[in-house]
Structure formats: C-alpha cells, structure tokens
C-alpha cells in the first residue's frame, strides 16, 4: 500500500475510533444524568416528521456548518505554520459590523454590493489581524496573548459601533441594538433549489444560505493555495521547521504577516453568511464565539480544508440536535461534552496513528535497505 494512502486510512480509522469512544463517554454521562443514551441518539437523528422539517433541519445543520467551516479555515491558515491566531473571534466581529454598515451606505447592483461587502469584511479582518502580526514581527509579542487581548478590545469596539456611529433606525421600544437593515440588493440569494433537486420542499427561514457557495469556493481556493502553490509550501515548511524554512530563503516575518493577514481576511467572512443570508443586519443577536469554535473545528479537521469541512458538518449536526434533545427531555449540554471529547480524542488519535505510520515507514525503509540485518560472525 502506498505510504500516503496508508496514512490517510490510518487517520480515518483513528478519527472513527475517537468518535466512537466519545460517543461511549457521552453515553456514560447521559446515563449518569438519568436518561437513556438510545433516546439521545434517536434525538440526534430526529429531523421531524415531514419533508419540510427534514429540509429545515438539514438547512439548519449546514447553515451552522458554513460559518464554522470558514472559521476553521481562518484558524488553520495560521496553525499550519504554528501561528496561533486565537484572534479570529475579534477579527470576525469587527469585520462583520463594518461590512454590515458599509452594506447600508454603499448601495449598488446586487453583485457589486455583495462583492463590496465581502471585500470590506476581508479587509477589516485582515487589518485587525495585522496588529498582532506586526507586534510579533516587530517586537516579538506572542500572538497567543496579543490576539486574546485584541478579542476583548474588538468586542467592545463592535459594541460601541453598533450602539453609536453605525446604529440604524429603530422603532420606539425596540431594544436590540442594530445597524440599518441591508437593502434587498445585499441579500445573498439562497440555495433552496438544491432541496428541490432532491425532491424536498424548500426549508423554512432563510433557507440554505447561498454563502455556502462562497465557502466552498473559498475552501477549494485555499486548498490549492496551501497544497499546490509556493506560498502554501512556504507556510508548510515554516510550520514543519521554521529555521530550515528561513535558511531556505523563506522570509519569516513576511510569512507571519501574510499568513496572519490571510487568516484575518478569511476570518472577516465568518459573520457574513448570517448577515447576508438571514439577519440582514448586525445586531445584538449576532452569533458570538465562532472564532473559538473555529479553533476546535480546525483541530478536528487537521488543518486541511476537507477535514475542516467534515468537522464543521459534524459540529453542525451535533448543534442542530439542541432542540430535539430538549424536546425529548434530555440534557442538551451533552452536545458540548461530545464536541470537547471528540476534539480531544481525535487529536490524541492523530498522534497515535501518526506515530504508527512513521514506525511503519521506518520499518519499511529499513527492510527495503536491509540495514543492520544481523551479520553472522563466526565466533
């Protein structure tokens, strides 16, 4: 079996084993809580009785996965070169409010307006990520610390902006702070026709967010960039062995800055699916915490676009069950426990399978070369 295929299979097996083990651990927790794991797992697959509820549930799951996927990508860009951008959280919030605001100020043809909104989000996210990058390259400040601090700062700035300069009109008595609602031209068309193609009715709500397409394109582009281009090679080399990368001519500072800014620019997109596809404004109910979840998703997906997609869908699948679990009278926080244990176990499994693969490769290499096969020496 070729080494690459073997490694892939082993990784997959490890992930499956980790998930099974995580399910077992969660089952114990569920039993300890006095409920039946069987009911719980039934709830995970309970998508309601009708085709409509099925479509709605699927859309909810995918819609949850889209921002998680983007967040995972953003985090992964840095992680691949051991750059820990914990600041995705702050970057996307700041980007989201700025994009939502610009979307109300600049009105144009739909395609242009949406493009502008996307660009603004990426620029704001990238610029905010530039701060920790410069602090690292210029003054050696650990990005882990600076980005954590900058998250607190970004959250406050965003809340200032939505309360003050970027605040939109509100009805008397409406308490949620919000930007102006985006004009229809900035609403991203949904993808409900996909359900039609499978003979399902359109899901309810915002439907399947059209931003999914952007995310898919982003994933493919990022895969190409990371796996096939020189820039991707430099990132990989910096991650595997930073000193060797520098000795080979990679400009370490430039890499830190470009990877961080790229990560921030992608992070800028995290909030857009929700804003363009559903809420059409940045308001108090804007989903927080996706940056932190993105870290978990990236880890689960081993910093690779395909893995991240799978991990995001898994998280989306688990999160969707919040309602069904409660309707069945079960503690829904078991979901978070499952997510946490899966991440931890998958990471441990990665470690173990990685070691097995290396061992095998070494053994294979040694066998091929016949090194140190004992020679018989006459006594």
């Amino acid at each position, binding site marked *: 079996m070729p080494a690459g295929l073997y490694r892939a299979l082993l990784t997959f097996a490890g992930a499956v084993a980790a998930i099974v083990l995580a399910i077992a651990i969660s089952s114990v927790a569920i039993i300890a809580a006095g409920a039946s794991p069987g009911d719980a797992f039934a709830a995970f697959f309970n998508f309601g009785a009708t085709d409509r509820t099925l479509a709605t549930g699927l859309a909810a799951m995918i819609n949850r996965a889209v921002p998680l996927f983007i967040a995972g990508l953003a985090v992964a860009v840095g992680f691949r070169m051991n750059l820990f951008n914990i600041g995705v959280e702050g970057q996307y919030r700041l980007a989201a409010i700025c994009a939502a605001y610009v979307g109300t100020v600049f009105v144009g043809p739909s395609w242009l307006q949406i493009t502008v909104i996307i660009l603004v989000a990426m620029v704001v996210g990238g610029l905010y990520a530039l701060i920790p990058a410069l602090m690292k390259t210029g003054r050696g400040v650990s990005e882990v610390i600076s980005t954590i601090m900058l998250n607190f700062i970004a959250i406050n700035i965003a809340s200032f902006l939505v309360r003050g300069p970027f605040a939109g009109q509100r009805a008397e008595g409406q308490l949620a702070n919000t930007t102006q609602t985006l004009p229809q031209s900035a609403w991203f068309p949904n993808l409900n026709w996909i359900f039609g193609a499978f003979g399902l009715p359109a899901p309810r709500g915002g439907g399947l967010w059209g931003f999914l397409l952007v995310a898919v394109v982003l994933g493919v582009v990022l895969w190409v960039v990371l796996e096939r281009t020189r820039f991707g*090679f430099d990132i990989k080399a910096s991650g595997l062995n930073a000193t*060797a990368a520098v*000795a080979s001519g990679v400009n370490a500072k430039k890499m830190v800055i470009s990877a961080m800014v790229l990560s921030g620019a992608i992070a800028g997109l995290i909030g857009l699916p929700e804003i363009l596809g559903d809420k059409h404004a940045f308001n108090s109910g804007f989903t927080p915490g996706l940056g932190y979840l993105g870290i978990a998703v990236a880890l689960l997906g081993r910093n690779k676009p395909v893995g991240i997609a799978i991990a995001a869908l898994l998280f989306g699948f688990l999160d969707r069950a919040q309602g069904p679990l409660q309707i069945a009278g079960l503690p829904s926080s078991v979901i978070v426990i499952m997510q946490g244990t899966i991440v931890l176990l998958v990471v441990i499994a990665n470690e173990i399978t990685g070691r097995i693969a290396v061992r095998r490769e070494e053994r294979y290499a040694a066998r*091929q070369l016949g090194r140190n096969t004992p020679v018989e020496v006459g006594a």
Partner: protein
Amino acid sequence: MSADTLATAKPAVELEGITKRFPGVVANHDIRITVEPGTVHAIVGENGAGKSTLMKILYGMQKPDEGTIKVNGAEVSFRTPSDAIGVGIGMVHQHFMLADNFTVLENIILGAEPKNVGFLDISAARRRITDLAGAHGLRVDPDRRVEDLGVGDRQRVEILKVLYRGARILILDEPTAVLVPQEVEELFQNLRELKSEGLTVIFISHKLDEVLDIADAITVIRRGTTVASVSPSEVTARRLAELMVGSELPTPETRESTVTEKVAVRVSHLTMDAEGHRTVLPKGVSAEGYAGTLRAEGRRLLLDDVSFDIHEGEILGVAGVEGNGQSELIEAIMGLRPAIGGIELNGADISSWSTLRRRESGIGYVPEDRHRQGLLLEGSLWENRVLGHQTRRPSKSGIFINRRAAKADTERIVKDYDVRTPGIDTLALALSGGNQQKLIVGREMSGEPKFLIAAHPTRGVDVGAQAAIWDHLRNARAAGLAVLLISADLDELIGLSDTLRVIYRGRLVAGLDPSDVTPEQLGGYMTGAIAGTEET
C-alpha cells in the same frame, strides 16, 4: 599501572549477548564485551553500527531485548539512568546534554542535589564542584551560565557531571568530535589521570588515531554485532577501519589544482557586532573603519573585519574551534544574520539581498545542522528537494509548485547521490543521517550553483557516504564551483581545500597552504597557541 590487580579484579563491565531491536532495525545483536577495570576501552564502528544504542543500554536509557549486563561482577538490570548512576556508571553523550539557561552548577547537581533541610545546598555543591574540578584539572566557573561557554568548557562540564555522581565507570560517546587537537590532548590527559585513579573509561570515537593513542583495548562493532576485540598495539588505523567496514578507507586527498583566475566570491571587511541590529552603514563610513571604531569601543565582535576571495574552481577551507565565528560567517553570507561589509558574487554586490535572492543567484548551502536548518523531517523527500528551490525550476511553475518535475528531479538525486531510500514519498525522518546528508548535498548541488557553502558536509556520516560526498565536491570544483568549506574534521579540511584559513575570535588569523600543514599546526592556530600571520 594496575596490571597486577587486573588478575584478581572482576571485569568492570561485562555485556553478554545484548540484543536490541528497533522497528525494522536490529541495532544490537548478540553483543559481547568485557571491559577490565582501570582501563580505557574503546569501541569503534561505522555510523549506525549500534555503539550509541549499546551505551544507552548500559546507561539504563534503553532496555535490551535480550542479554545480560554485569557490573563489577554482579548482574544488573536498569530501568532508568538513575539505576545505572546508582552502581557507579556515568555517561557523556554524543550530543551535549546541558540546559543552556542553567548555570554550570545547576547542570552538574541536577538529579543529585545536595540538600539542607529540604532546600538546595548551593554552597556545599559549589565547594564540591571546585574540589572535583581542582582534583581532575577540569577548570570551570560553577556560576557561569552554560550558554556563555565554549565547547571545550561544555565538554568539561559534562565530565564533571559524571564525576560529581561518583561514577567509577565513564562512558564517553564521541567526546572529541567537537574538540581541536589541543583540547583533545587535554582531555586525554584528564582521562589518563582518571584511569590512574582506578576509574574505567569506555570511549567511542570515529577518529582512529585517537583511539590508538588512548585505548588499552578496542572492540569493533559492525552492523550491530561485535566483530573483533583487539589490542591497540597489534593494529594499525587502517586495519581497524577495514575491520569496521570491510573495505579500504577513502581519503580526501586532492592535489591537482583547478583554481582559476576568476574571482567568484569576494567577502570584504565583514563585521558583525554581538548586539547590533544595524545592517546599513551610516554615510561616509567604511566597513573597515566601522569595525575599527567598534573594536576601539570594546564591543564584542562575532565577525571582525573578515575578508577573503574564492576563485572559481577553488575550495577555501576555514578551520576553527567551534564558536569562533564560523556559524556567523556562513549565516552572514547567506543573509540569515545582519552584518556589515561587502559580499560579492561574480562581481555583483549581494550584501543587501535577501536570503532567497542570494540562493536564486546561485549560492548553495549545506548547513551545519541538517535537522535544524536543512530538512523538513516530517516532509517527504521530494518536498525536501523543493526546500530552498521553491522559486526555481524545476520546482516551480508560476506561482505553483511543479510537483511532477520536483519528483522527477528527486529521483535523479536519489540515483546520482546514492540516497538509500525506498522511495521519494518516504518521510525524511525515516532516512539515516548519512542518507539525509546525501540528499541535502544533492539538493544544494542541483541547479548548477556558482558558490557552495558546505558546513561540516560529512559530519556524522559514515566512511562510505563520506567518500561519495567528497567525490561530488571534487567534481563540482573541477567544473568551476567555488566552495567555502567549514569542517571540524581537519583531515577533511586539509585534504579537500585549495586554500586554508583559520578563524579565531571572529578574525581570520592565518592563511595556510594545505599541502604542507599538519593537523597539529592547524590546531595551534585554531586555539590561538600560535599567533596568526596573514599569508597567501
């Protein structure tokens, strides 16, 4: 000396049928060695023969799969190094095992700390170390930080660590690899003294002259098995080498000159300040003048007004004790560390260029430490081929990496340089050190470089691979390549170089003709024992 006690005393160490398997590799197979007390017992064998593994077993760091160990006649079974330390065994490892940020004292007492009502008894430790150091002539300042020490001092700290634990059996795994002849002689003096005090020394080295010089008995290991036990009085270095590999020793002899008139590389007044960050000189100040000013100010200069030319077809060897500026010199030329002064390649001033641009313009670089600077251990061989050539054909096409071409070229290197590997998708970490080194040399030689910086190109590489690498260097030189060779192996330096320079405290202190210099002379310049005079 202790000849009469030998008859009655039990062997200090007896290894019986030791076997150790690693995944896919039998590192040791049925090893039998008997070490008499109060002797220096040398163990020789080519790279990967299993010497270090065997010593780690004796020191409790690895568990043997089979076999028995007897120390002073009693059978022992070690689980950890502390068990070995407990029966009086100490080991100085092939690579330094020191915490740089600790003081000498802290490094020495670690794991055997003197205590006074629960607290460290620093003053007792200091007294003990000073006594020990005095008694064995191992001078070190216990309160200095290890990071500030040179290699010779570090080696002494390593030996003190062992003596501090009251070891009666010392294992020294290649202690001389980083020392110059004078330091080696000093070390041997210490060893003889220890021996006269009744201590037993197990000594590993690739330098067979040294082995013959110091050892009372020699054991040869080949492919994990003991193949011979000889007495140094009965063998020559050549015979030993044949026992080790079963073939003739290659030599780096190279006399017919290929040096041309054309200057390929010109380094002028290269100066590096220990604290400075500046890379651009102020207007109107020459590098030479600047160096003078800094010197007058009493600054510590890592490189002090270094100038030399290398012609096409010339190998310039730079000798020096590690830590005298060799690393800084090559890193400055590669643009990895800022320095002031001129660096020209074929007439173009490259001193302000980025590392990448320097590489693109035809500089090859075989780094000192292949694991740190040369390889992506967790990357495949072909990815390692791309490293440093991301922006050049055949590895690139546009903004993309040309995987197919890179793989094809890796196949070429594997073939031409005899890299022993099951395939080019193998991870680099699966290769032995020598094969990794051949891959690096092959990579750096590809793309027809004009100038090659080769730092310790054969360090830790066994004799067969050594010869292959030397051949490649010679061939490239004949084709007009300029080479800056830095090596701790003086035979290699003398044998390969067309011109020799000695670096001492950041200065080039001597220019020597390799055809009439001995390693001892060279060592004299390197340690500053002979004052340098610029010749050539």
